[in-house]
Every structure is written in C-alpha cells, then in structure tokens.
C-alpha cells in the first residue's frame, strides 16, 4: 500500500454537502432507472405476449412494434442527454462543494508526505494523490 490520503472519509460522508449531492443524484437516477426499465421491459413483454398488436400497421405498413422499438432508441438518447445536462448543471457544482468541504475536513499534519493529497489550491481543484494499490 502506498501512502494513505489524509481525508476523514466518515466525516466527509456525513457533511450536508455530500448528503445533498448523493440525494439529488439518487432521486434522479432511481426515477430514470424505473422509467427505462418499465418502458424497455414493457416493450419486451409486448413483443412476447402481444404479437399481433405489435404487427398492427400504424402508417402504410409501418408497424406498432417497430415504432415502439424506435421509441427505445429515442428514450436512450433522451435520457443520456438529460443525465449529462443534470450532471454538468446541478451535480457538478454540488460535487465541487462537497469536495472542498471534504478537503477542509482533512486531518491536519498527515498530508506532509509528497505522495499525500494536496490542499485545495487557489482555484479549488484537487491536484493529485497517489492511490493505494
């Protein structure tokens, strides 16, 4: 094991900043997962049990089944884009805040080794740290 970073992990988890980030992310991800599982497995169940419904034409021979299949593609792209938007607009700022808070909680004096985690620099970015193998 290489050097251990000087962060108090338990305290970092208990900070309101970390809890807010985790809750915000979980709320969205659980909802999105529930939606895509329902939409996808609903489609698969229809493919399994409602064969003639899936073969019904909705436009000049283009069928319900293919329309629903294409909706899965649209859903995937839409949810991906939504996740990325959420992440950069809402979760990244929350994360940066929780990160600075966690670094403030670092135990003083233990990060003197050159391999240890560096203090937040002027712009708040974490520089580097050797991760234990």
């Amino acid at each position, binding site marked *: 094991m290489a050097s251990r970073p000087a*962060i108090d992990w338990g305290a970092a988890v208990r900070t309101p900043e970390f809890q807010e*980030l985790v809750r915000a992310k979980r709320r969205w991800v659980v909802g999105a997962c529930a939606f895509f599982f329902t939409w996808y497995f609903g489609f698969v169940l229809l493919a399994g049990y409602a064969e003639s419904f899936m073969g019904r034409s909705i436009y000049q*021979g283009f069928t319900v089944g293919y329309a629903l299949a294409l909706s899965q593609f649209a859903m995937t792209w839409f949810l991906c884009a939504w996740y990325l938007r959420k992440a950069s607009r809402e979760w990244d700022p929350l994360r940066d805040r929780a990160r600075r808070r966690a670094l403030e909680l670092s135990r003083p004096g233990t990060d003197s080794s050159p391999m240890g985690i560096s203090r937040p620099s002027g712009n708040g970015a974490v520089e580097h740290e050797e991760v234990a193998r």
Partner: protein
Amino acid sequence: MTVLAAVNQTALGAFGIVLAVTLLITFWASRRTRTATDFWAAGRGISAPQNGLAIAGDYMSAASFLGIGGLIFLFGFDGFLYAVGFIVAFLTVLFLLAERMRNSGKFTIADTLAFRLRQGPARTAAALGTLSVVAFYLIAQMVGAGVLIQALVGIDFSLAVIITGAFMLCYVVFGGMLATTWVQIVKAVLMLATGVALTVLVLNRIGWNPVDLFNRAVDKSPKGHKFLEPGLRFTNPIDTVSLGIGLVLGTAGLPHILMRFFTVPDAKAARKSVMWATALIGSFYLMTIALGLGARAILGSGGEAAAGKGGNLAVPVLAQELGGGAGTTGGDLVLAIVAAVAFATILAVVAGLVISASGAVAHDVWSNVVRRGRDSEREEVWVAKIAAFAIGAVAIGVAIVGGAGLNVSFMVGLAFAVAASANFPSLLLALTWRRFNTAGAVTGVLIGVISSVGLILLSPTVWPGPDSQGSPFALENPAIVSVPLGFIGCWLGTMLGRSEDGERSFDELRVRSELGLGAEEPTAAGPASRDPRPTREEEPAVPAGAR
C-alpha cells in the same frame, strides 16, 4: 460459397490495407507505451469523443455488423430485439457505473469491486468473473472470424483464426491500450461509413421511402405479414424477457467495456464518452433495419441459402447485389470492402477482450494477490504481456479444435449472461451496499458464473445436442434465473460471512467514487500532455461559488 470465391484477390487487397493501417497504429503506439497506466489505460489521455468511438468499436462485434442484419433478414422483428437491448443497455452503464468506475478504479473492474474488501479473495473472484466472460466472448469472436474469412475470402478456417489471433496479440503486446483504442476507433469509423453507404444504396434501390422497405420485405417473405410481428425466432415470451435482462444488465458487466472508462482523463469525460457511444451505436443499429429488411426485400427467399445458417452472410451478399451483383467489378469491390470491415470489426473487439483479460491476470491476480503489491510496474506490464500471449494462444487453440461447429451466437449470449449474473450484481452491491463483504463478493461471483454456465448447458441449445426437445431447463437465455441467483449469492454470502473492517472503508469508496477525490490522473507521459483536452476546456473545474 461458390458465389463468393471469385473475390479472393480484391478482398485480400482490402484485408491487406486494414492490416497495414493497424500495424502503423501499433508501431506509433508502441513508442508511447511505457508505464502500466500507458499499457492498460493509454495514459488516461483519450478524449470523450475518441472514447465514444472506441466504445462503439469495442462493443459492436461482427455479431452486430453482420449478425443483427442477418437475423432481421431471417426472422424479421425478433432479430431487431437484440439491437434494442444492446442500445438500452448503455443507460445501465451510464447511470450506475461509468463515473463511479472512473473515480474509484485504476485498470480493472476488480479495482472497484475489491476496493474495500479483502484483496486476495475479492480480486480472485473478480478476475474469475472477467476471465469467464472474456473466454466465451473471445472464442466466439475467433470462431466467427474463421467462419467469415473462410466464406468471404476463401482462406482456410484454421489459418484465418491464426492470422486474427496473431494480429490481435501484436496490437495488445506491442501497442497496449493506445493501439487497441485507435484500432477500435478506425474500425468504428469504417463500420459506420459502410453502414451509411449500404443504407443509402438500399434506400436508392427501393425509391427513398423507408416505409416501402417494410412492405417490400413483407411481399418477399414466405411468412407474409408475420415477418413484421414478433415470434419468428422466440416462441417463448419468458425467453424473450430473459434475453432482455441478459442484454440490459450484461453490458454493465462486460470487463472490456468498463475498462474503457479508465482511458479518459476524468469522470466528466467518462460520462460524455457514453453519450458519444450511444449516439454512434444507436445510429448503426438503426441502419441494421435497412440492411436486414433490405436484404429481405432485395434478395428475397433466394438469398437464404447464400446467407448461411445464422444469416451472417446476408449483409455481404446484399452488398454484392447492391454493388452490381456477383461477378461484376462493382459487386466484387463492395463485397471485398464489407469483408475487410468485418475483419477489422473482429480484430478491434478481440484486442479489447485480450487487454482486459491481461489486466485480470497481471494487475489483479499477479500483482495484487500473488505479489501483494510488492512488484514493480515494469514487472506488472511484463506479466500482462505474457498473460495476453497465453490467453491468445489458448483462444486460438480452442477455436481451431472446437472449429466452425461452435455456435457463435450461443457463446456471445453466454458471455452476456455471465457478465449480467456474476459481474454486475457484485459490482453494483460493492458500490451501493454498506454491509457487502468479501464473502458476499466471492459467493455472488461463483454462483453467478456457475448458474449461468450451468443453465446454458441444460438449455435446449446444448442439451444433449442443438435443438433437442426435453432439456431440463426450458429457456435458451438463462438471465431471468441466473441474475437473481447472482444477487442472492451476494446477499447470502454477505449474511453468512463476517463483517470486516478493511483498510479502506465503504465511506472512502463512496466519497472517492462520487467526488473523484484521489481519482487516477492522466499521466504526463500519455498523449494527454501533447493534445489539448477538449473535455476539460469545455467545463473548467471551477468551484461552485465562482459560477
């Protein structure tokens, strides 16, 4: 394939170009690959769009390029079910794993899975999961390569397998992840370009109305309107659901795909690369509708003999027809291009598989279990190269001995089932369940591997021969049973094992995976230092207060 024998020379030329380009890439990459981070993670200097292309190149095997189009040609709607599962699966990867893996891991899925567990048993279990998936997937791809090249170019099966294996090993051993990544990028570009070109040719042939494609395909199908309905391939609805579970959760357990997230500079680039990958992969799968239905509409039932048993040659035969037909210069040229792209497709996938397996052997088992982290980085990379060589040699051997008789789609299905049942439950629980412990990881992976492999052996595909009746397990796809068993295994092991206070805590894993504190940085020696990193520039890491 007498129709195809005439193209030997053109196809060989196209193969030669593909091989020459990939060798140049490997030579370039070999001079930039020194450290373990270079070898397994390309110095973490791959940008998000590059990684998105590479994921597409890593993920879409010949089973996607030729297989799905062929299945649509043969079975209509049921063939397209595979494509839908393959694309939706990326939501599981993005929502649950991509960023957390990048933040908490180094080279392999075991880095995350075993993060806070006892290294010896947990890493060994994770390596077992990785190697099982890779074994089935790799052998499937090698057999596929042999069959395809034999049919399309006329090179003998064994020789084709050996050539594929030799080039795969060359990329991995000399060029590491950097060469593998660029081979995958080149292949993805070639494959997408070929897909677009063939789609345009199909639409041109039927008069630019996509809806006509459906009607013409129905007219040419002996099944009539049933061709557009589900049920021609999967007669048991539970089997269809089971296939869906395997595809959607299996992707999130494929070691060679998850490993790609370690090649980007940070978690932001990881999630952006998934966006790129879904855009590219989804576009290709949409085109498989045009290829599959187009093959049915244009070739009709007459194409079935030429398309082969699994329909794998339907797309090449369609390409030949679109180029002008068998025996014409245009037809031969288009067929040769499709054959060469199929070859590049297989090379890119097998290289990705072998490099992930080398990580499991060298980084997980050798470095962290046998040597307990006391080895040098140099030694780790050497062991990785030896491991890659050994794995490649075994895969070549099994593919040749098993021969063309091994069922390719069955092996790929098995790889997804093992990934969904063994790797996915333990990875997810390691990241989310505080109580999860080493015993849970070990039992979960073991039960996942044993149940998925065991149920496939008992399924109608294998027991006691293909398409037999009266097998003990009625489903072709085991995931609906084996995935819950994998989760139960994790839970049972956790409850029976003792809770442990490892050197690293669950809190540390959570903070690191969510915040990216202490995440692996791109190395100075990697390409990142030379290339500007667009992902960083677009979203400068300013603190929230400054926005």
